[in-house]
């Protein structure tokens, strides 16, 4: 009998706690931003956080009658940590939205948490195509690597490159990029004559570049993490691949705005495809870049920052639409949203919850004494080509 009483009392206490949590949650919307703030990918974390904070600074911290609270947590780029932190955020802090995710494995590891807790999860950085398929609660505000690879492959095929080589880092996104490039490039009539996968930990590209030089393609498609990319460009230059008539083409990761200016002259002339450049010519972007520089000690926003910025836009707009309601309703409200981002017109594909955006073809040029990716062509409204039917993109 006594035991029964205890059970009831305990249940009542628990119930009470749950109710209190509910009331607290009604007051503010907690956005848990899980990012690599330390370790080799700290630049990603810093840019995404700065982008998200800038959006809140510009748009106030109240929307749909509720206050927005940003909780930033560092996962150090380790998937186990990301998952644990996300779980704590949901269970203990009652987070209504999970956001951030700097790398593919980090997003993949957290997907089951979003599904179980029925919490919207906004991927602001990671770019592997299949991420959005891992949970119906995932919405992406960054880009997919195949989107960028598709852009550069089409440009190459249309601009006199018939034989190309690929050089990527030997990890999942690298293979994703090489496969996407090859698929589109060969469908457009080109051939890939040499494929190299370089170990992630070994940044001496000399033998691989020499091999490619000797194979003699007209273009070399490259995908490597951004810091290593500058080393690659230097060695590309040092080895004289340029003089051998090989054009360096890449996804925008290699000429990341965050470090582009430090790369020096070797970067000049590189052709890349991506969804965002700090030099994008639009009033929205001018305002964004100026505000970003002011808030961040004159450093430039890159594609990660715009992912964070647009990710917060998604939360805000969806909250407006649901009138403050969170959970599944919030994901529903995000589907099909379209807006003018600093990167240009974008929307969320209601079927895949992935972002649809223009992919720009850019060349590295000097502007006002600094190096920028200057856009000169674009492919409008590209869906993720892996999830969409590839052929529809032609």
């Amino acid at each position, binding site marked *: 009998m006594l035991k029964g009483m205890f059970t009831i009392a305990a249940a009542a206490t628990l119930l009470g706690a749950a109710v209190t949590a509910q009331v607290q949650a009604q007051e503010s919307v907690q956005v848990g931003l899980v990012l690599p703030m*330390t*370790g*080799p*990918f*700290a*630049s990603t974390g810093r840019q995404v956080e700065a982008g998200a904070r800038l959006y809140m600074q510009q748009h106030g911290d109240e929307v749909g009658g509720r206050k927005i609270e940003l909780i930033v947590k560092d996962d150090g780029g380790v998937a186990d940590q990301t998952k644990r932190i996300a779980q704590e955020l949901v269970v203990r802090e009652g987070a209504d939205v999970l956001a951030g995710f700097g790398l593919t494995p980090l997003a993949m590891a957290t997907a089951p948490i979003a599904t179980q807790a029925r919490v919207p999860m906004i991927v602001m950085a990671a770019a592997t195509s299949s991420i959005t398929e891992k949970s119906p609660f995932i919405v992406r505000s960054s880009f997919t690597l195949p989107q960028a690879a598709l852009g550069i492959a089409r440009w190459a095929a249309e601009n006199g490159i018939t034989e190309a080589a690929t050089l990527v880092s*030997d990890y999942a996104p690298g293979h994703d990029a090489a496969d996407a490039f090859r698929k589109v490039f060969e469908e457009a009539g080109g051939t890939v004559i040499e494929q*190299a*996968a370089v*170990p992630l*930990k*070994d*940044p*001496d590209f*000399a*033998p*691989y570049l*020499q*091999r490619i030089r*000797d194979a003699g393609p007209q273009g070399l498609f490259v995908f490597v993490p951004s*810091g*290593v990319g*500058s*080393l690659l460009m*230097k060695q590309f*230059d*040092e*080895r*004289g691949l340029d*003089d051998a008539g090989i054009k360096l083409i890449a996804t925008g990761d290699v000429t990341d705005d965050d*470090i582009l200016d*430090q*790369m*020096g002259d070797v970067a000049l002339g590189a052709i890349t495809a991506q969804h965002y450049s700090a030099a994008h010519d639009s009033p929205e972007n001018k305002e964004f870049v100026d505000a970003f520089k002011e808030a961040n000690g004159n450093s430039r926003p890159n594609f990660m920052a715009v992912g964070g910025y647009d990710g917060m836009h998604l939360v805000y707009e969806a909250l407006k639409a649901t009138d403050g309601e969170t959970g599944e309703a919030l994901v529903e409200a995000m589907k099909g949203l379209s807006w003018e981002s600093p990167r240009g017109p974008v929307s969320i594909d209601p079927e895949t919850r992935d972002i649809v955006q223009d992919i720009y073809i850019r060349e590295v040029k000097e502007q006002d004494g600094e190096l920028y990716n200057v856009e000169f062509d674009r492919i409008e409204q590209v869906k993720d080509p892996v999830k969409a039917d590839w052929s529809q993109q032609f």
Partner: protein
Amino acid sequence: MCRVLTVLLDGIAYGMLLFILACGLSVTLGLMNFVNLAHGAFAMAGGYVTVVLVNGYGVPFLLCLPIAFLVAAAIGLLLERTLYRRLYGANHLDQVLFSIGLVFMAMAGVDYFMGARQQLITLPDFLRGQFHLAEGASIGVYRLFIIVICAVLAVVLQLILSRTRFGSRLRAAVDDGEVARGLGINVGTVFAMTFAVGSGLAGLGGALGIEVLGLDPSFPIRFMIYFLIVVVVGGTSSIAGPFLASLILGIGDVAGKYYIPGFGSFMIYTMMVVILVLRPHGLFATRGTS
């Protein structure tokens, strides 16, 4: 034929760089019998000194090289006098734990002050571009520069070790420390000097390697395995051993990546295994040392 020449020269440049980075380790490990896994941290120190000087203060790159050597040597000397010497008598596990701890501290410290990103420097114009040797064969000027510097250093080191009084004192101190002490050789000072020079060379290697190997806080861990392979394969009883081992490994690594790219990154390990099966004490072991 010309392609072979290019690959060969690239391999030699890579091997030379490995030698400069690792020869200090072969001295501490072989001559002083100390397992110093933190060796790469001194190389990293030299690299970061160069980055700060070149990018922050506009110091010419060539001037940075001796500074990188001196700063790394000074740090080496300081740590040897304060920390390392306490562990000369300790067992190898203690030495490993101590030095790996140092590595992590160095990595965290660099991460905190300099950030985790890849560091870049701009080389002076005369070190950039290509040097044409023959029709179709060429080598980067910078790689040629590395080969020349490292070759000169290797010769100088060998001469110091075999021809100078310091060299014979060092060999005596290693062969039998107590007898050497009895003969009036200050073994502690000899070891400290040797340790400092080894660290300095690593620092120089780190500075030279920024353009080839990259530089970020994970540098000491990333290359630790390469240094150890050089020492293991080369044996630890001379300068010539690690020198030839570095060259063989460098050329093998580059050639492997060039001719069989899919397998290339395993080449260096395969070579290590094969060499150790044939000669368990390294290529040039004269006696059954460690």
